[in-house]
């Protein structure tokens, strides 16, 4: 127990503020999330055909540096509990149906964020993984998309900015 506690104290708090979104701004956004939604923002992540690279970076959002949960945004297990779907692609034919079901199960109003060059169908990688016999290509070819976060894979920082942008009222 003692080495464990020692480790915790030695590590301290490593969470960083998001550059371009200063700490005060994050606070404000957090406040806004609470006013708009009346609670924390909940995300259901769906891998509809990615190479898992995008998922590695989405995982990183919960590491202590980015600490997404600490900012009032958390990942949930069921689409029925979600405000936002965070979808990676390219959407495979074998996942097309499951993705549509998830979309229908998510209560309105809902936000859909497409992640990665594959999910957004953009750039060189998006073109390499375009529609073919086994895939539908970009997420927007299967369900309506509100915000796109390109990158291969997008870094945690870019992901965070994209998610915050999606919930900022325009």
């Amino acid at each position, binding site marked *: 127990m003692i*080495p*464990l506690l020692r*480790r*915790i104290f030695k*590590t301290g708090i*490593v969470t960083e503020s998001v550059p371009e979104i200063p700490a005060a701004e994050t606070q404000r956004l957090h406040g806004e999330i609470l006013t708009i939604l009346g609670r924390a923002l909940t995300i259901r*992540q*769906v*891998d*509809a*055909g*990615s*190479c*898992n*690279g*995008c*998922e*590695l*970076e*989405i*995982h*990183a959002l*919960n*590491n*202590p*540096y980015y600490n997404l949960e600490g900012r009032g945004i958390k*990942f949930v*297990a*069921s689409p029925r509990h979600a405000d936002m779907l965070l979808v990676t692609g*390219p959407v*495979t*034919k*074998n*996942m*097309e*149906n*499951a993705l549509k079901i*998830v979309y229908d199960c998510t209560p309105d109003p809902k936000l859909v964020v497409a992640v990665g060059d594959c999910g957004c169908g953009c750039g*060189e*990688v998006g073109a*390499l*993984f375009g*529609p*073919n*016999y*086994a*895939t*539908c*290509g970009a997420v927007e070819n299967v369900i309506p998309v509100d915000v796109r976060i390109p990158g*291969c*894979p997008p*870094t945690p920082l870019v992901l965070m900015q994209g998610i915050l942008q999606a919930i900022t009222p325009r």
Partner: protein
Amino acid sequence: MRFHAEPIEFTPQPGVGAPVWHGRAVDGEDLLRYAISVHRHQGRLSALWGSDERERAGGFRLHCVFALTEGWQWLRLDLPAENPTCPDLSGIFPAANRMQRATFDLLDIRHDGPDQRPWLRHGGWPADWFPLRHDAGDHADFTNAPTDYDFVKVGGEGAHEIPVGPIHAGIIEPGHFRFSVVGERVLRLEQRLGYQHKGVEHRLASTDFLTGAKLIGRISGDSTCAYAWAYAAAVEAACGATPSPRALMLRAVMLERERVANHLGDLGALGNDAAFAFGLTQFMRLKEDWLRLNADLFGHRFMMDRIVPGGVSHDLAPEALARMVEQCELFAREVSELRAIYDNHAGLQDRFLTTGIINTDLAHELSLTGMAARATGMILDGRVYRQDYTPPPPYAALGVRPVTDERGDVAARVAVRFDEIFESLRLLRAMAVGMPAGEILTTITPVAGGAGLGVIEGWRGEVLVGLEFDAVGKLARVHPHDPSWQCWPALEHAVMNDIVPDFPLINKSFNLSYSGADL
């Protein structure tokens, strides 16, 4: 050269890659006889795929890669253009089951095995259309008509099924798990995969080798370096090119950094799955530091597209190497500290020990590879010297120490990961100090009709890429092979008789790739 007095004559593949031999079986009998001999000599089935050779050779071809202590044998069997059928290897190597079914789904090469269910085709394309046939064309417009799957039913009093997936409860790739349970106890797990099938092999056909490299690096994001290297090695063998010693060493730097990153992430997640959030936080913090240095050193957190045919695209300056050494020293201390905490935590050890066991005999039967095989006591690592086996450069000169653990449970897979982190940290320091001078990229000229097989020991296990060029120097056929093909069936065995709540932990201890095997 012949192996074990079998009549098939093999020729060695030239180049500096892993030891590979090429050979041909005259007929199905010949192939079966060779497979039995490999099995008797404790060999493994490393990969199996098919190709359409009607334009070049008038028929189809079955490709099998077997692994013996000495290295890998790529054995080809020509099949007729009409009703191509191959002998069933799944009776000798159970790992052949899914590969044969995938080969049928993609090419209509039949097998005479008992399991005739489709594997990759879930109804996204018609049953009488085969994507890898040259005359198939591309049809992005098929109606998607999902089919049912014939799961094996488990009967008996109190037995019932729990279906899970394709979408799972966490941030994880899709796949379906069908548990048959009595109370909490798992009687049987059956997997249905293929949800990540993106037609990668179809995309690779007729592309140039540089575009191919981009695709290969995106088959499994967590193993991008292993894939890129295996592919580069295959292209180099096919084209008679040799990368410089510096390029090979830089590739190994990336491969070991990839290994450490994945083990760090999984060790954290394993702590978390046993309700030890401290472990997740600490290891995720370390992993983030590690990835940030990747970005500083190579310009990408996962080093995608940094290993290219002919060499590497990024060089490291002496200051960069010095930073890397410094980080390795720091990590060796931090990870030891965390290991002591894991080892002494009664709650964690209670969950890890005797959970999800695979023994050595089963590992042999399933042609298991990589970290999961080493956790059953097998010394099976393409980077390590064995009797009759010399690892390819730069590993031959580095003297990689084998890591094994005989217990075969989650605890063993945790221990192997810890030990492999320490060994990789040692290797990274040694490589930084002994980095040879020289160029980092050699030019590659595609050789029409050239064929090559690349094998790399990735963090999960053996990653293979077999490829052939066509008459105009484009890629005719590329088959990338993930170790998960062999490891998924092992997971089905590992959970038997454990309880359902232990499944996430056991699953994580393997952390297999869906995308890599679904292609």
